[in-house]
């Protein structure tokens, strides 16, 4: 008897838990088509029906109530969500913050509305880094992607910052609608371009065979090649190549190396630097012994590019005799801040698009607005972030009939043609890459980046 007593209690407890749990689902269920799983059902999918059943059931769950009410306003009005997934904890923060700022700016300009005010857009900046790691974390990115996949009000995913992270989230989001991704920063060619990455790329990232990933930045295969030919134009014959041992930097340096060899530059050597080392004087001593006339660095500011340039100068390689070239990863004021005006003087950078300060017309307006709004010079990444958000907004405006239809938004994004943005006029090709292949080359002069020339890619 006594033994059964607690068994009964336990069962009662569990039953209650189950009933409550199921109850929550059931109350949401009537709002959606009966075949949809309760968890996935959100009243917004069928606003009209939702309006009819909006009277809360006795155990109406608050979570379910939110969208119901939004939808209950009748008409095509809806609240949809855009999220970004970027590493906001740790060393990438500088760049990612400018991206988020620019996205917010784009949304603010539209007053967070689309379709003539019928659609309200909310934005959340997710972090794919963790404090414990201080950098992007694979399981955090996987989690973010899963979370986005599950939340039906999300129609676009702006991210990722790191190409490695994109490799994880693309397949997840590919199977969730597909949910369109727009990256403001990934440059790894294999994410989109067949034959440019490893075997099986990029198809292995798209299980549904439908592409859902686009990027507003040109991929490394362009930038690396453009860098090499610019190096040749600048009169370099012997180059030494460094990378920061990360996916972005190493990939870029690989392309640069291959292109340099193809166009007849002599590659003296190749090394990877530890981005957290205190200095690189020993390495620079070795490089100096080889007498290169250009050092190419594939990497980002955060991986100690400033120190690298400083030590290069300290080892006796002055700007006049040995040039230093880097990609858009160091195209930011922070790089000059880190290297110091003197050491940075004369450094060359390549960049996929027109530098912010060179913009004209509408783009110039954006540039001024950003400066006013955030009290800072917009960095290269800000442009990409802004452009990505604008593309999403345009896509939403094209699918007003059903603003929560991920497929429609994806199609609209991929259909982006001759878009006049702050980077110029461009389109997405069938791979989701920008057709903007014109690059710009800049050089540090008196502590500022100055536009030097437009670089055509072959």
């Amino acid at each position, binding site marked *: 008897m006594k033994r059964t007593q607690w068994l009964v209690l*336990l069962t009662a407890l569990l039953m209650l*838990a189950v009933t409550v749990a199921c109850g*929550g689902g059931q109350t949401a269920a009537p709002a959606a088509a009966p075949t949809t799983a309760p968890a996935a059902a959100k009243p917004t999918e069928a606003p009209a029906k939702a309006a009819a059943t909006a009277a809360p059931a006795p155990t109406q769950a608050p979570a379910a109530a939110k969208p119901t009410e939004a939808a209950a306003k009748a008409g095509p009005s809806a609240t949809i969500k855009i999220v970004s997934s970027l590493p906001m904890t740790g060393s990438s923060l500088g760049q990612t913050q400018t991206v988020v700022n620019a996205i917010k700016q784009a949304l603010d300009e539209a007053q967070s509305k689309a379709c003539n005010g019928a659609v309200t857009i909310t934005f959340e900046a997710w972090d794919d880094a963790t404090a414990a790691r201080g950098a992007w974390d694979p399981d955090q990115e996987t989690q973010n992607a899963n979370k986005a996949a599950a939340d039906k009000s999300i129609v676009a995913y702006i991210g990722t910052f790191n190409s490695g992270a994109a*490799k994880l989230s693309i*397949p997840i989001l590919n199977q969730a609608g597909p949910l369109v991704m727009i990256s403001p920063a990934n440059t790894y060619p294999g994410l989109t371009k067949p034959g440019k990455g490893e075997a099986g790329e990029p198809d292995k990232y798209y299980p549904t065979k439908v592409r859902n990933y686009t990027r507003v930045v040109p991929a490394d295969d362009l930038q690396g090649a453009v860098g090499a030919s610019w190096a040749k134009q600048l009169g370099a014959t012997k180059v030494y190549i460094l990378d920061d041992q990360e996916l972005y930097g190493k990939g870029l340096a690989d392309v640069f190396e291959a292109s340099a060899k193809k166009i007849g530059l002599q590659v003296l050597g190749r090394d990877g630097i530890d981005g957290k080392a205190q200095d690189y004087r020993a390495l620079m001593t070795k490089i100096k012994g080889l007498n290169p006339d250009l050092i190419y660095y594939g990497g980002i500011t955060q991986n100690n590019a400033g120190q690298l340039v400083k030590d290069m100068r300290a080892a006796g390689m002055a700007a006049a005799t040995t040039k230093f070239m880097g990609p858009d990863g160091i195209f930011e004021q922070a790089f000059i801040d880190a290297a110091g005006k003197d050491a940075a003087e004369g450094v060359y950078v390549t960049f996929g698009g027109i530098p912010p300060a060179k913009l004209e017309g509408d783009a110039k307006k954006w540039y001024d607005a950003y400066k006013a709004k955030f009290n800072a010079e917009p960095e290269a990444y800000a442009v990409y972030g802004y452009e990505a958000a604008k593309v999403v907004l345009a896509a939403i405006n094209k699918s007003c009939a059903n603003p929560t239809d991920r497929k429609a938004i994806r199609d609209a994004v991929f259909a982006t043609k001759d878009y006049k943005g702050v980077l110029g006029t461009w389109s997405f090709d069938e791979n989701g890459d920008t057709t903007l292949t014109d690059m710009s080359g800049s050089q540090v002069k008196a502590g500022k980046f100055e536009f030097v020339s437009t670089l055509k890619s072959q």
Partner: protein
Amino acid sequence: MSPAVRTGISAGLLAVVVVLLFGNLSGVVLGLLAGAGAAILLDSRVEWPNRNAAIVGGATAGAVAGLLILVGQFIHDLFLMPLAGQPVATAPGSTLQAGLIAVVLAALAGAAVGAIVTQAERPRQLGLLGLLVAFVILFPFLDQQIQLGWTPTVISVLIYVVLALGLNIVVGYAGLLDLGYAAFFAIGAYTTGLLLSPQIGINWDHPLSFWLVIWIAAAVAGLFGLILGAPTLPLRGDYLAIVTLGFGEIVPIVFRNLTRVEIKEPFTGTCLIGCDKAINLTGGEAGINPISHPWLPLVGQFRTGQDLPWYFLIVAIIALTIFLISRLRNSRLGRAWTAMREDELAASSMGIDIVRTKLLAFAMGATFSGFGGAFFASYISAIFPGVFDFSVSVIILCMVILGGLGNITGVILGGLIIMMSDRLFLPQLATLVKNILNTSVLPTIADPAMKDFVATSVDPSQFRLLLFGLTLVIMMLVRPEGLIPNVRRRAEFHEAEAGAEATVATEAKAPAK
């Protein structure tokens, strides 16, 4: 105030913190936990006259905790949300409903625990275990229904719990400070990656291959535990720690750079391996991607985005780990580890082979991280060298020490708290505070410079590191011996205190002589 109310309040307050952060129906999960927690806490403080008293007491404690949660839900819905600029999504009625459900559930959970704890030893243990198992099984469904979205986070947290359990063998049982445990995690993950992907042309594409590979990964990791453990044998204390740290640094570098493997005989120059084309063993920075997923009859292929199969797989791995580790612990080998930790010389004089015992500890610890690594590789479906750096080793060590060295429950709890704070609570806190700042504070600041300062420098989402550090420091200060210290360890701690007092006492007497 009766003890029932008091414990109810303490458990409830903890739960309220979470409810304030997440709102919605999080109170349901928290209610269950807080109710049961309050009753267990109460049981440790009160002698029960009879079962009914226990049930009533448990129910009271649970109900009190539940009431606090109810209050928390109101604060969240009616006060915090508007402050954070989110529309008041719910009618007060539904907030009340959610709160009341939490109260009822908490009271029921408390009563159930009350009923169970007054049983005799065996049914009591079985009962508590039953409750726990029920909760663990129910959790993902509950989570799905109330749309908290915690399950993916919990899965990745549980991976770290497996690792912490493994490290606990090395640090907790055998007393060897290991600062490079991530190395074995990496070895397990890479083994899985190499076997379950086309990277080196193996791509073992049988539906059931994962179930074999996870054992291979564990075995390989264990083997490396032996290999890397061997050089550390003559070392003690922090010298040992630094060598393990060294291995922890070396292993990821090796994985990062084995992209062009080509071996030539040094004297004759004949090529032995990678002659036609240098072998790309590990994929370098890009790592190995994709890695295939497990398959099970009925469940089918596991897929990212479908949490349930993964959740239950990692729970099963943890259960197996706990099961095996507790067998080890209560065996001749487990006793040898503890004896060695207590007094290496005496242990050796009692016939314990120190070399073998140490190596076994390293190997077993590494083996369990192999399980974790295999799961991780398959779950993320990719691996890169950057994942296994020093910070991972340090965090796992924190979990073990914070939970209570040598105590399985403590280590699990420590792991849950640290990782959940890092991945769930602190980001949510930062977001919430940031929203409040943006909507309720920023507009009130007129001075643009000040506004800019607040917007960029006082951004709470930038204080995750600080909050995380504070969590570690405060928890250590509050519970220096760990959350649930091993009985033995606790004794040790108080012995040290008593010892210090005794010395002080002698010191006081000494000058009088």
